[in-house]
């Protein structure tokens, strides 16, 4: 146990005006790049790291934490306002956020996203600060076999998002898995489906597929609906009701269990490296919908839908630091970037970090808490601005968004190859959406695919191909039983809602 005086010293190191300024700068930058479709916080952090070389470790890390956290809030903005999520984890937010914005309540929708994002984030930060060590030990016990079972469970929950046609849902999922198998196989390192393009050796670039499928295809859709008359991209017509511009305490409080569930899912998935915030957001969304008394209201602007996905995807980020700080294992690309910033600034994440550099670690925790408050405050101001921005004519907004997506993907994938891939997936996404195939299912399958395959390969290697050994793991057996139960539950409730 770290000496209490070290904890206090760490926090007092963090709470200085100088660090606050860096957190503020980071959050403003993060919210901005998060809100601009196509760039995102990961890009911003990768660019910002070299600029932190000259700083002391604490302000440098505080700045990066600010960018990361600001990006989470910013990411929800284009998803809610324009239905063009810049990152796949915000796609779940768009499901209810965008319908609410279209009802003339864009501020209510974005504010709900902001509040639930900060709530989920703060929840996982508190878990990180208080019980990271025991949680990390539990995460270690989740070996490849348990991870396979967990992934199957995640897929089974997604059955709740399939909607009307089971066949189309399964086709979308299979297509996502097929696309995920491009690149070298995880076991023998043989290139698959690369058709001579060595750029595909490591698989299809994630930003290209995600932005092409989710953002560009939506923009294409909106452009195809334009009829020459000038319309605002988002109707911000004043409904005259001041309640439509804010989130009341009663509304926030009504989502408390939804956010608690979302934050818990996010924290658990975040503590396990490699599963990620997209799956967390959709799992939380699907579970909330299933638990709701009025599932039919989801997808039509239910604030609980926003709260479910934002609290979950934001909780992942704090929890990603659990394996990182305690074991030195990065849980995501963002966490990997923070690790390299740590190393550059002389911190060695791992079992001795708390002992050797406890003061700096608690300084980091202080900066994280500070960033949450700053996020809330900057978000309140920033959202008004974004809502004004998107009330510009749609011909301007969507063409600028298109341009930014091109620039962002070209930057993220270092070249035009990624842009070409993005365009291919934009057309595929447009066609799939037009014919009623779920893009969301496709994207989740695509994101979970590589990890799923790798875990299966690892499990087969560990068990010499003997799958009955799964029954030796109580955790895996429990997760598999839950998967069966959830598939049955979701298919039945789908059938019922169709019968009605």
């Amino acid at each position, binding site marked *: 146990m770290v000496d209490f005086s070290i904890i206090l010293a760490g926090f007092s190191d963090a709470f200085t005006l100088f660090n606050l300024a860096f957190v503020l700068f980071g959050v403003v930058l993060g919210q901005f790049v998060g809100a601009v479709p196509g760039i995102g916080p990961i890009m911003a952090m*990768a*660019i910002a*790291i*070299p600029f932190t*070389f000259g700083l002391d470790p604490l302000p440098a890390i505080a700045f990066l934490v600010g960018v990361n956290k600001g990006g989470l809030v910013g990411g929800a903005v284009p998803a809610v306002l324009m239905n063009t999520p810049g990152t796949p984890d915000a796609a779940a937010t768009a499901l209810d956020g965008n319908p609410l914005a279209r009802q003339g309540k864009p501020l209510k929708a974005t504010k709900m996203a902001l509040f639930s994002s900060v709530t989920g984030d703060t929840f996982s930060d508190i878990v990180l600060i208080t019980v990271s060590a025991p949680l990390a030990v539990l995460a*270690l*016990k*989740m*070996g*490849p076999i348990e991870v396979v079972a967990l992934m199957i469970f995640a897929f089974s929950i997604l059955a709740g998002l399939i909607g009307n046609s089971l066949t189309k849902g399964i086709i979308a999922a299979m297509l996502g898995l097929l696309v995920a198998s491009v*690149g*070298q196989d*995880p*076991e023998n*390192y043989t*290139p698959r489906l690369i058709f001579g393009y*060595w*750029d595909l*050796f*490591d698989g299809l670039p994630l930003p290209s597929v995600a932005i092409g499928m989710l953002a560009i295809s939506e923009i294409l859709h909106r452009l195809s609906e334009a009829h020459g008359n000038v319309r605002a991209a988002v109707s911000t017509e004043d409904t005259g009701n001041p309640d439509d511009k804010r989130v009341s305490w009663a509304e926030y409080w009504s989502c408390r269990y939804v956010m608690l569930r979302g934050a818990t899912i996010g924290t658990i998935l975040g503590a396990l*490296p*490699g599963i990620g915030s997209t799956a967390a957001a959709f799992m939380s969304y699907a579970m909330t919908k299933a638990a709701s008394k009025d599932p039919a209201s989801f997808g039509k602007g239910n604030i609980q839908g926003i709260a479910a996905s934002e609290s979950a995807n934001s909780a992942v980020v704090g929890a990603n630091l659990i*394996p990182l700080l305690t*074991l*030195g*294992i*990065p849980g995501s*690309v963002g*966490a*990997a*970037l923070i*690790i*390299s910033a740590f*190393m*550059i600034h*002389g911190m*060695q*994440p*791992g*079992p*001795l*970090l708390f002992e050797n550099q406890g003061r700096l670690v608690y300084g980091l925790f202080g900066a994280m808490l500070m960033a949450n408050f700053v996020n809330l405050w900057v978000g309140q101001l920033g959202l008004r601005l974004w809502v004004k921005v998107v009330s510009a004519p749609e011909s301007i907004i969507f063409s600028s968004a298109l341009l930014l997506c091109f*620039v962002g993907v*070209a*930057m993220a994938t*270092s*070249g035009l190859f990624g842009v070409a891939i993005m365009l291919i997936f934009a057309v595929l996404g447009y066609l799939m959406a037009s014919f009623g195939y779920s893009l969301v299912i496709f994207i989740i399958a695509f994101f979970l695919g590589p990890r799923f395959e*790798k875990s299966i*390969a*690892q499990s087969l*290697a*560990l068990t*010499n191909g003997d799958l009955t050994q799964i029954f030796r793991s109580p955790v895996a057996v429990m997760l598999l039983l839950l998967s069966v139960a959830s598939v049955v539950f979701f298919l039945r409730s789908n059938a019922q809602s169709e019968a009605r």
Partner: protein
Amino acid sequence: MKLKSKLLALGASALLAFATPAFAEDWAPDGPLTIQIGFGAGGSTDTMGRVLAKVMKDNTGWNVIVENKPGGGGVAMFTGLSQRPATGNVVGMGVSIPVLVQLVNRGDQLPFDLESFDYLGTVAKAELALVASKDAPFDDLEGMVTYAKEQGTLPVATMAPPQVLIMNQTKAATGAEFNLVTADGGAEVMKLILGGQVLAGFGSGEQFPYLESGDMKVIAGANQTRLSFAPDVKTFIESGVNAYVDPVFFLAMKAGTDPEATKAIASAIDAAITAPEFVEIVQNAVKGAPVNMGAEGTKKMMVDGLANAKVLFAK
């Protein structure tokens, strides 16, 4: 990062217009100099590359930019590099062994060979160790082989093809059976060891915190000579398995680059690796000192390494 590099180039050229012509007599890149890292962000190659770029930038005043081009242990990046025009403003940074193994295994499918590049130098050598949890019922490779024979088989985590080949050589030489689990990098190997899913695994630096804390022990060295941080531990070769890997972090450019450019960049690299902040990051990443074999030495290392890899890793 194209836009950023363009903007920075614009800024840099604006600055240069005002700067004193201190470097006027030297070669300088036309626009920014990009270092492409053949691995993802956050790994040891990436970390060293970013600090190297920063020190080079401080020393020379050039605008040095880092890009990550992960894939196939650097093969994706070197493929891209080999297809570029030799304009003298893109440098690739990678690790020798994964590239050499790919050249041995599927050289006919790769659009490059060793002659496709002009070599600039090396920055460090990686030491590859087979490590196990402190509770493992063996302390060296012989003990591990004996234990594997007793148990029938033993799970070992690897993170790259050469390690799979070393373990296969071990199987062939000793008759022991191993379940080889492939992990996504050294950090995941450590997780599998700590979680008890495997009994041993390879680390190229990720194990240091656990060696320091006493949670892990070194079973064998996988380099040609013994590990600098564990000189008492025998290598695979000393234990009777005739296989080793000597991964070296090196930098190269597209062949046919202006000799002025390669000379200037190679000397900038050579100057940068002695800077205290670079020495520190190399120490953190590979627990050793920076090593520069020079342009000629790097090429020789790659050519000899390929011949060696053909012998060791022939199918």
